[in-house]
């Protein structure tokens, strides 16, 4: 392989990389918020008493989970052409809906593992069903499932790289731009994957430290 590496290209294009990184973070954080919101709603519905709600939640989870994230992204970006949503929001939507399905399953399992007696006691104490849910069930459920959710942000950061295919200017897209100008594909993509690795590692370490004492799996898998 007759190729002279020029790692300096990463420094020359540091601005593009920084901008890409900022977008990666924005995508991941907004996707996280969306996934949590969707997941808590769907998970609660899935664990609830009403069959229709359970059905909807179940369908959402199965459909969203079984369709590749790439296809989610293309769906919002290409499929719903009429909407013409900005690529960034297509990315956020895709990430939120896809990850939300996983969060829903975790939340559902968490709620269902809170002992029945808790709900009964809460209602007997005069709390409305809604208050019982928010003040009694959720705290306990979330405590049970927190370890499983710990890896969510890391996973989202890695998944956000797919948004580059719908031309969101995040980190992987930035690597493509550098590659286009310089043809230095190796340096661009290796540099960027190191950046992902460092970021994901840092976040895993932070989560481990915050939730220490529990069986934490910092790399969520779904």
């Amino acid at each position, binding site marked *: *392989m007759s190729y002279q590496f020029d790692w300096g290209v990463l420094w020359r294009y540091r601005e593009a990389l920084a901008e890409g990184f900022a977008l990666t973070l924005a995508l991941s954080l907004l996707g996280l918020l969306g996934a949590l919101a969707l997941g808590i709603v769907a998970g609660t519905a899935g664990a609830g008493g009403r069959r229709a709600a359970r059905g909807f939640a179940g369908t959402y989870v*199965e*459909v969203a*989970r*079984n*369709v*590749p*994230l*790439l*296809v989610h992204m*293309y*769906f919002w970006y*290409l*499929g*719903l*052409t009429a909407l013409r949503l900005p690529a960034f929001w297509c990315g956020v939507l895709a990430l939120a809906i896809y990850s939300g399905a996983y969060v829903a399953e975790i939340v559902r399992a968490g709620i269902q593992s809170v002992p029945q007696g808790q709900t009964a006691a809460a209602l007997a104490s005069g709390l409305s069903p809604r208050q019982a849910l928010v003040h009694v069930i959720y705290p306990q459920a979330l405590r049970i499932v927190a370890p499983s959710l710990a890896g969510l942000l890391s996973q989202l950061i*890695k*998944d956000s*790289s*797919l948004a580059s*295919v719908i031309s969101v200017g995040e980190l*992987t897209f930035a690597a493509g731009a550098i590659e286009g100008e310089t043809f230095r*594909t*190796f340096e661009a*993509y290796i540099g960027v*994957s190191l950046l*992902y*690795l460092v970021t*994901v*590692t840092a976040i*895993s370490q932070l989560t481990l430290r915050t939730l220490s004492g529990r069986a934490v799996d910092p*790399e969520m*898998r*779904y």
Partner: protein
Amino acid sequence: MVWRNLPYLAEGFAVTLETSALVILGGTALGLLLGIVRSGRVASLRHAAWLYIELIRGTPLLVVLFIVYFAVPPLIGHRFTAYEAAVIGFIAFIGAYIAEDVRSGLASVPRGQVEAGLANGLSPRQVLWLVVLPQAVRRMIPALFNQFVRLVKFTSVASAIGVTELTGATLAVNAREFKPLPLLIALALAYFVAGYGLSLVGRWLNRRYAIAG
């Protein structure tokens, strides 16, 4: 429009299914190997396996594929076709994740079983193969099938290194025909059927073979 392009799309779907099947086999094998090594007695092997697993799990799948397709051939002097690189890359990737499930599966077998096996005169290796693994595998079925379903979805990433699997084929057709909505819905449906079907198989297997408790 869909009829005219059906052979091309069907070929893409076949590639997706074939890739998934190969990787399920190879990835499970690799995962078992790595998981057993991770739980084993030789410290240096344990650390090596751990390093591999952590590296892979911190790397996006796309990057793993790139590394297998571009970085490895010059080092070993043999070129891979895009398809070969994809299969190898996927196996390397999912194997690391399955390894962790294997490790937990092995750890979840009650210690008493191991002791009973040893007390009966079985060597540690025999205990592993005859006592622990069978039980561990049965406990791992849900986790394993979870990974398998993930894998079917991941095959779409192979389009990035030029493998014409289902997503790549669909996008190519869309570039010419420009009917994204029906094409994408069909695409989502195909993956849904494949993935959901696989998870149903997993659930059936789990009901039949799971160990209570």
